[in-house]
Every structure is written in structure tokens, then in C-alpha cells.
């Protein structure tokens, strides 16, 4: 059984609807860092805090349509994913180079190597980045957020069973790449 956080979120939402602004603060505290992590692992490089803020604003503005049969965090992730895709589309239209050209990833590694002294983290990221986009998204939601397959399926637009398969295939690949000296 998965620990049920939904009753807490539902109670806080009800309090916010009743005019208690502190409840909003507590909801943000509960989910903001996970949203920032989701943005970062989705490839968002800039203005992550703005993206987190936009996600909450949009969520609070449409909170009446939130169905409690979904976890609040899962719903927030779907809102953020939509915002990420919108931003990406806008950037492409403006001609901002976001395509991954040959060698782009290598440059990213170099930039990160300069920033992050942690070799283990670098090795792990390279292994994860070698996964297919779908495998990577499922794997990271499972590992960094501890999400149930059913919730992951809602975020990535797939089925619970397919997500389980993606996770285990990803895990096998990761072990093959870095398992030996982990």
C-alpha cells in the first residue's frame, strides 16, 4: 500500500477555498520542490522558479476542477508538463535553438562538469540520459518522486502496465551502464 497523502491535500484545498491563505502556503511547501525537480529532469534549463509559480497559479485558478480521485501532485505535474511544452513551442517559433543537435549533449556535459564536482552524479545522469525519452521520464518519476505507476501513467500519457515495463527496462539499462561500480 502506498501512503495516502490525498486526504491532507484535500483538507488544505478545502481550507484555502474557505479563505485560509496559509493553506495555500502549505500546499506550495508540500509540492514546490517536486515540481522544480520535475521541470529540471524534463530538460528545463532556465526560469524554473517561474515555471513552478505559473503551475501553482494555474492550478489555484482552476482548483474547482481538480478531481480528488487523482493525487494533487500528479495533477500539478500534468499542468506543468503542459506549460513546459507550451514554452518549448513558443521558443521554437521564436527561433530559439532548443533542438538537440549532434554534440549538444556533450557540450551540456562539459558545462555541467565544470559546475558539479560530484562524479557519481555525473555518471548517473549520463546513464539516465542514454535512456529513451519515455523510459527516462517514467524512471525519474518513479525514482525521484516515488510515484505509483498509475500516477506516472497519467503524467506521461500511457498505461500503468506500460509504465511498469518502461521502469524495469530502464533499470536494467542503468545497471548495465553503471551497476558494476555503483
Amino acid at each position, binding site marked *: 500500500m*502506498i*501512503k495516502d497523502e490525498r*486526504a491532507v491535500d*484535500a*483538507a488544505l484545498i*478545502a481550507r*484555502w*477555498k*474557505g*479563505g485560509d*491563505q*496559509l493553506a495555500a*502556503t*502549505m500546499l*506550495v*511547501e*508540500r509540492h*514546490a*520542490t*517536486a515540481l*522544480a*525537480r520535475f521541470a*529540471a*529532469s*524534463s*530538460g528545463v*534549463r532556465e526560469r*524554473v522558479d517561474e515555471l*513552478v*509559480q505559473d503551475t501553482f*497559479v494555474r492550478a*489555484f*485558478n482552476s482548483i*474547482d*476542477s*481538480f*478531481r*480528488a480521485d487523482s493525487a494533487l501532485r500528479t495533477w500539478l505535474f500534468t499542468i506543468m508538463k*503542459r506549460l513546459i*511544452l507550451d514554452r518549448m*513551442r513558443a521558443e521554437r517559433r521564436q527561433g530559439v535553438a532548443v533542438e538537440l543537435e549532434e554534440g549538444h549533449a556533450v557540450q*551540456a556535459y562539459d558545462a555541467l562538469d565544470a559546475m558539479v564536482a560530484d562524479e*557519481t552524479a*555525473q555518471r*548517473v*545522469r549520463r546513464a*539516465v*540520459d542514454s535512456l529513451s*525519452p519515455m523510459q*527516462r*521520464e517514467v524512471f525519474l518519476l518513479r*525514482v*525521484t518522486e516515488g*510515484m505509483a505507476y*498509475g500516477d506516472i501513467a497519467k503524467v506521461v*500519457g500511457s498505461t500503468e502496465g506500460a509504465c511498469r515495463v518502461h521502469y524495469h527496462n530502464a*533499470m536494467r539499462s542503468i545497471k*548495465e551502464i553503471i*551497476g558494476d561500480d*555503483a
Partner: protein
Amino acid sequence: MMRDCPDGETRDLLPLFARGRLAPLDQARVESHIETCGECAAELRLLREVARAYDVAPVDVSTIVAGLPTRRPARAGVPFHRQPLWRVAAGLTLMITGAAAVLLVRDQPALDLGLSSIDSLALAPTGGGKGLVSSVPVTGAAAGTTAASTDPIGGGAPAMGFGVSLSDLTDAQLESLLASLERIEGTVLPDPETMAKVINPSGSDQDTGRES
């Protein structure tokens, strides 16, 4: 090459265990399995390395909250925290979070990767107990609790800019993904008519969430 534990069900729960997302009984069951299973212990270390590699700096909560819409109370009534259901939910959450915290703390010495920061991060956003306790009775203090870091997330957060999952989509893939999100979009838009049945504070009909 790391070997896989033959107990597939337990192995499947390891990421949830690592993030403290299992109900207390399952959390304890997985923990005792790991104590006697080298394969699962090794896989758990790997999972925690992945989680650490993608961790981000704490978000500035106060800035986000300042930009949120405010909501006027629909009607006067019993303050929510005085309602019996709310008290039960708060109490239960406190108990569950407390038990999970104990398990996580017990888990620490077995790990060699300096992971205590990960676990406290895992607890902070999900462990509702802390915030709830400090808010009954309501105080202004809770607003600052996890807003301690004012470091903008971009600054010094090693997780920035590494994933390529969405940005490596082709234009056509991006458009099709956006189209597939339209139905989710439908649930995001406000629909005042449905307000009454949306929230069920008891949580009784949700998430039986059996993971296997």
C-alpha cells in the same frame, strides 16, 4: 553486472521505499527484506544515487505564495480545523508521518552515501504532518518553514539543464504530445458547477494503490 533479486514484488517497491512513500507496514516489510538481501541493498544504493543526482535546491515558497490568487470564503461557518473530520485527518497524518520518519531514521546508518539530506527532502514536501501540526491553531510561522532558502532554483542547483526528455522531441512529436494533453487540459479549466463533488476530505474512496 548487478544481479536482480528474485523477489520481483519487493524489488518493484524499492523506489517508493527509498522516498518513504509506502504505508508503514510495507515500509517495514521492505526494510527487513533489504537487511537480508544484498541484491536489493545494492539496488537501493543505486536508486538513491539517481535521486541525489536529480535533486534541486529548495524552492522559495514565499515568492510563489505571494503571486497566488486569493480566495474569499464562500460562506461563514465552523472553521475548518474545528471540524471533526479535519481533526481525524490531521491526527492520522501525524501518526503515519511519524512512523515513516522513524523507519527512515532507522534506515540511515545502513547507507554509505551521505543520504540524510535526500531523505529529509523526501519528507519535507510530502510529510504533511509537520505543516499541519504547526497550523493548528493557525500561526503565521509556518509560512517560512521551508522557505528558508531564498536561493533561486537556477542558482547552483546541479540538476538544471541536464535532462533532454522533452527538448529532444521533434516538432511533430511535440504537437502530438500537446494534442494528447488536451483532455488533461479539459480537467484543468475551471468548472464551478462541479465544485461540490470535487473534494472528498475523508479520502475514503481513493487510492487503494496496491503496487505489485
